[in-house]
């Protein structure tokens, strides 16, 4: 449906939520009036929030379309209120312009604003440089090698040095493979009690420091994905003080969970960057408050049921989040931050990092929005999710808020 009248809705305009009003949504824009007979929806005082931008989309297509497809991913985005996202597949390295244009064509069919990271090494092998100049010319907004650790420092230097010609940002999930050493969970009291192989914080800080030093030396902008501990945020702050262009995000689930969840031994808590201690979680929240953290990422990573219906340590790491991110986090965010900062973290800032125009709600211009009832709880059920995957750590839990519908690219989806 392209046209809709939202009654009794509180749109986020000029940094705050307006009093309840009527919004006429016509052909993707907020118009003064709607054609006669346009369907109306009573929002009952719900919030119209600028649609979100998801950092960390991995829809698996084309190589693993048996798991998930772009169609599934776009369906999930519409359910969760995401008008766009930054795509980087951990399984399929986009390491040449042909692969990039192929995936851009698939994406273009769905009309949402999806940007792409190119790989800086062929096949994420950290051995041969990808054709970064051509990738940038074809639309890659930056470079990253999935969640791989590029432990060969000389290659890292050469990749960043060569890539600097493009002016693009390099994206890293900082985790030193050698220190990780088959670890799956945070090295803390829960892992030690359970006897599980664990990842110490220094695996993250040492990797981050190496990258920051390289970024300082080469004057290349870098971004850290899924920062999970306070020490890394301190390194980022220090680097900024000496002029390093470094941005970072924190994963939505790292704001919701800490390593105490390990006692559940639920394989849905097995994610690439481990949930760290309660102190780390608090440090991430403080990073949102202070502005050290630029954005919240969603890292939507579908995993087949049979790869999660195993014991924790044998499960494939990864979690999906598009459908639940906003109702799971909104109230907590607004409990500690202003609504404007919450919108910035979930929508404006991630879009800017990906070089995509932010979603705005403004009379007379394009409207991409998500309609949220902040005070009605939602139970997370399997039917909430697009595609065949269900690997959500919140499955079976109650979220504090509920998405009523989304209006994205001129299409209304009632949830």
């Amino acid at each position, binding site marked *: 449906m392209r046209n809709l009248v939202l009654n009794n809705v509180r749109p986020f305009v000029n940094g705050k939520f307006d009093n309840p009003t009527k919004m006429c949504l016509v052909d993707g824009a907020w118009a003064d009036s709607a054609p006669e007979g346009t369907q109306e929806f009573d929002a009952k005082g719900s919030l119209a929030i600028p649609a979100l931008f998801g950092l960390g989309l991995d829809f698996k297509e084309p190589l693993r379309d048996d798991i998930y497809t772009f169609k599934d991913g776009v369906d999930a985005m519409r359910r969760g209120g995401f008008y766009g996202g930054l795509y980087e597949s951990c399984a399929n390295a986009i390491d040449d312009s042909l692969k990039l244009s192929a995936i851009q064509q698939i994406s273009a069919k769905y009309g949402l604003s999806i940007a792409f990271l190119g790989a800086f090494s062929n096949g994420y092998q950290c051995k041969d440089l990808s054709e970064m100049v051509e990738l940038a010319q074809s639309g890659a907004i930056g470079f990253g090698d999935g969640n791989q650790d590029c432990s060969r420092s000389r290659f890292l230097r050469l990749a960043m040095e060569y890539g600097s010609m493009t002016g693009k940002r390099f994206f890293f999930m900082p985790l030193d493979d050698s220190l990780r050493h088959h670890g799956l969970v945070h090295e803390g009291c829960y892992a*030690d009690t359970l006897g599980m192989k664990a990842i110490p914080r220094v695996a993250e800080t040492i990797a981050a420091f190496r990258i920051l030093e390289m970024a300082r030396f080469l004057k290349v902008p870098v971004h850290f994905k899924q920062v999970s501990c306070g020490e890394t945020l301190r390194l980022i702050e220090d680097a900024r003080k000496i002029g390093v262009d470094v941005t970072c995000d924190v994963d939505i689930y790292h704001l919701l969970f800490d390593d105490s969840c390990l006692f559940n*031994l639920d394989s849905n808590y097995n994610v690439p960057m481990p949930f760290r201690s309660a102190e780390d979680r608090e440090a991430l929240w403080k990073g949102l408050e202070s502005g050290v953290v630029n954005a919240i990422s969603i890292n939507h990573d579908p995993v087949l049921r049979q790869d999660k219906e195993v*014991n*924790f*340590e*044998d499960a494939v790491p990864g979690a999906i989040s598009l459908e639940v991110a906003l109702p799971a986090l909104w109230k907590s965010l607004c409990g500690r931050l202003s609504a404007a900062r919450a919108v910035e973290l979930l929508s404006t800032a991630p879009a800017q990092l990906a070089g995509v125009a932010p979603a705005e709600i403004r009379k007379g211009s394009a409207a991409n929005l998500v309609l949220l009832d902040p005070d009605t709880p939602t139970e997370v059920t399997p039917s909430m999710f697009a595609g065949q995957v269900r690997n959500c750590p919140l499955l079976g839990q109650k979220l504090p808020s509920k998405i009523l519908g989304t209006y994205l690219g001129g299409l209304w989806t009632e949830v």
Partner: protein
Amino acid sequence: MSALEIKHLFGLRGVSKHDIRLILDNAKQFREILERPVKKVPSLRGMTVVNLFFENSTRTRTSFELAEKRLSADTVNFTSSNSSVKKGETLVDTLRNIEAMKIDIVVVRHKGTGVPKFLADNSDAIIVNAGDGAHEHPTQALLDMLTIEEKLGTLEGKNVTIVGDIRHSRVARSNLWGMTTMGAHVTLCGPSTLVPRNTELMDKVTWESDVKKAVKDADAIIALRLQKERMDDALLPSMREYRNTFGITHELLECAKDKVLIMHPGPINRGVELDSEIADGDNSVILNQVTNGVAVRMAVLYLLAGGRANA
């Protein structure tokens, strides 16, 4: 018969004193039966127990199998090396297929932490943990406790020192939970690369880096097996240095009480964690542990099956 509060045996963390007492008291009765000419009782007649071992095991599997047979259960052994697991079958499918054959109890050993709980969440069978990763090995700890009670009368107030690779030891973890619940003072000692760094949740025990201090007041010393792989992983420089620093030797025992019990979960690396003359000496109760293993496993199976029958 008093019933267990637990429905499965995943580990000893969180298991009540009542349940541990009940298992140990029943094990003492089964221990007596094991001394009789006819060592069999009909307690589990008609029940089927599957021994589902995804990791190599000789003594634990044999001990469980013997316990099951002594209780007159029908037993089936399932090992990953000769099973459909090798053909790619998932753990859940393996369990559901076995369960479809109408089994009652599954005894499981697996390299993954939490596999017993995972199986219980996905089946109706009674699950007994025979070792999951470095997490827990509850029946080993129970047989250790039974052995100490048998020799010293009680665990209450006794000092038990565990020496070795604590970080990777499911035996140490089960023992620290079980023994502290039963009132023993547990001291853990090992090389700094082989002890956990984050012990906030294991705060009822004493951590000691000096092995001489660790054994000084001990009523029982449990030496843990040292895996040779630890050397490959650079966690230790050599077996030689380990033996000289943390091995249970005559020289070390000069710092300990005369009658200190020497225990080991087996199999022993003689001359590494335990010198041969100590392993075979008067203070050693290692073979008592093995005998008690059958009795404890009989008690666990009997009580868990009884709980289900009474439900």
